[in-house]
């Protein structure tokens, strides 16, 4: 047992280190600017006095490492500085939107994970039948579709007739069921985008296992196919399945950007895209840090969970 805890502690430490390095990259990316931030924001025509004043306001007269430490400790306490575009504290801009984005991602995950695991297991069970081939072709096709194509097809068929709203407007006063209804199309889009990949990986993991001798043994004992899958294949396939689920949840976090823009959903992704075109560096950095942290944490979680499900992984190289 203690081996497992040591391993988990090591993974957590590695994850923390990764996050730290990522924060350095995100912070120092602006240092790559020709000139500096103040010049980039104010443009060529600014007088030296304005640039100098703006520099002081941003704290650019401090050395880079000191600014980084201030920024990081601020971020850890939820203070990301102020936006360049509207001078409001970034924490205010982010707090509501972060909740919205998480709501959408969790909503999509609740539909996508059970659906794709069921489809994947069925496809493995009935492999090389019409069902399997159709599921595979659908999966390959939906992987190839850009998210906005899926989104607009859904709008075309489901929103035009007034069945569902094409714009996912929510605000703090929206009730839970109402929010579920308003965000149904974005959640469905995300589901369609990730289901295919999860399904294919589940199918591959199970089929891989079905070739092993103990499955052969279970079959020869006269077990029913469904029982062989549930009792013998699925528990051993858990590690790869958990990994692929977590990877796709991590993908949801970033896939949400395009979907939020299509459905005009007030989430983090939309804020980031708006800030990119306005070149509002502090906001972009803050949102990028949040997205990257979520991504790293989900990958870490997958790593730990799959190790717990399969103790043989503790001693891997």
């Amino acid at each position, binding site marked *: 047992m203690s081996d497992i805890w040591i391993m988990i502690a090591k993974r957590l430490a590695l994850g923390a280190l*990764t996050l730290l*390095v*990522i924060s350095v*990259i*995100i912070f120092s*990316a*602006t240092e*790559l*600017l020709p000139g500096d931030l103040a010049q980039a924001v104010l443009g060529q025509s600014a007088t030296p006095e304005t640039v100098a004043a703006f520099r002081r306001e941003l704290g650019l007269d401090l050395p880079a490492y000191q600014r980084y430490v201030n920024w990081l400790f601020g971020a850890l306490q939820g203070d990301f500085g102020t936006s360049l575009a509207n001078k409001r504290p970034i924490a205010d801009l982010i707090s509501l939107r972060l909740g919205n984005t998480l709501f959408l991602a969790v909503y999509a995950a609740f539909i996508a994970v059970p659906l794709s695991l069921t489809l994947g297991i069925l496809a493995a069970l009935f492999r090389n039948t019409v069902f399997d081939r159709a599921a595979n072709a659908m999966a*390959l*096709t939906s*992987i*190839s*579709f*850009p*998210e*906005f*194509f899926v989104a*607009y*097809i859904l*709008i*075309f*068929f489901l*929103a*035009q007739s007034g069945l569902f709203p*094409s714009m996912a407007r929510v605000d703090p006063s929206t009730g839970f069921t109402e929010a579920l209804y308003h965000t149904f199309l974005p959640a469905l889009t995300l589901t369609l985008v990730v289901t295919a990949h999860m399904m294919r990986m589940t199918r591959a993991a199970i089929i891989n296992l079905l070739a092993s001798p103990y499955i052969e043994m279970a079959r020869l004992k006269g077990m029913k196919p469904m029982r062989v899958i549930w009792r013998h294949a699925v528990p051993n396939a858990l590690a790869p399945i958990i990994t692929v689920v977590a990877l796709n949840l*991590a993908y949801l*976090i*970033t*896939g949400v*950007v*395009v979907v939020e*823009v*299509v459905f005009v959903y007030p989430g983090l992704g939309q804020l*980031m*895209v708006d*800030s*990119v*075109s306005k*070149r*509002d*560096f502090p906001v*972009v*950095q803050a*949102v*990028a840090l949040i*997205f*990257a942290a979520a*991504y*790293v944490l989900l*990958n870490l979680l997958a790593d730990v969970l799959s190790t717990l499900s399969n103790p043989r992984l503790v001693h891997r190289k």
Partner: protein
Amino acid sequence: MHTLITLFWVAVAIALAMGAGWLFLAAARRLTRGGVARALRGAPVSAGFGMLVILIYVLVALFAHLIAPFGERQVVGAQFLPWDGTYLLGTDNLGRDMLTRLIYGARNTVGIAFATTVLAFSVGAMLGLLAATVGGWLDQVLSRIVDILMAIPSLIFSLLLLTIFGTSVVTLILVIATIDSTRVFRLARSVAQNIVVMDYIEAARLRGEGLWRLITREILPNALAPLVAEFGLRFCFVFLMISALSFLGVGIQPPTADWGSMVRDNAALITFGDVTPLLPAGAIALLTVAVNFVVDWMLHRASGLKE
């Protein structure tokens, strides 16, 4: 009733696509000889369809200026005109011919995606092969850098870099090529690692072959099959990423005709039941599906036809 009709048309489209793929394969088998013909004999209909679609896209991209009825940036009429005899697919939000924009989009969007993939591939594959061959601290340094870069979600990272360097075609290509080359590096390195331990590499080293010759003459030819399939997959990723960025308004900038931004500019029409804005998105989807079909077949061949 409405859904039934849609399903019927989808079925008709699939049947036609399979027919076209079969015909293309039959024609290709006739026209080619030797190794190519032998490879084509085992190709499934889906791969035939994929190759046909890719061929059509390449031809349209190369001869865009001959096929297109109007100029790329020419305003030809009122805004959002419906489909008719002169403007086959209507006009866009600025009154430019939709069909013309679609045709030039093949050149711009696909061309930029292809250039990016080639760049990402040459850098990533070269560094990956080098890391595996030289090993030691070079391998360690490159691998750790790649690990860190891959820990940041690619769309988010490219948005961050595009904020800093601004949005132009050159920065777009460089940013996405940098991010994507990390994925190529991973694959190239792991493929090459299995090759460097072979006896013939040992023999080549003892013969005194230099590093460059070792990589290009001994390792690369044997790593080619998985790398070619990876090229197809990477192209799809890059193509989808560039389209997504253009759709978000931070990729290929107007007035260049590009499929991602065409969807964005004309999206308002969809809520009125007009399918026109879906066409550029469909063009993106069709090409990725086609490339995936061909890659699927190549991977199947490379894996020695095992399931």
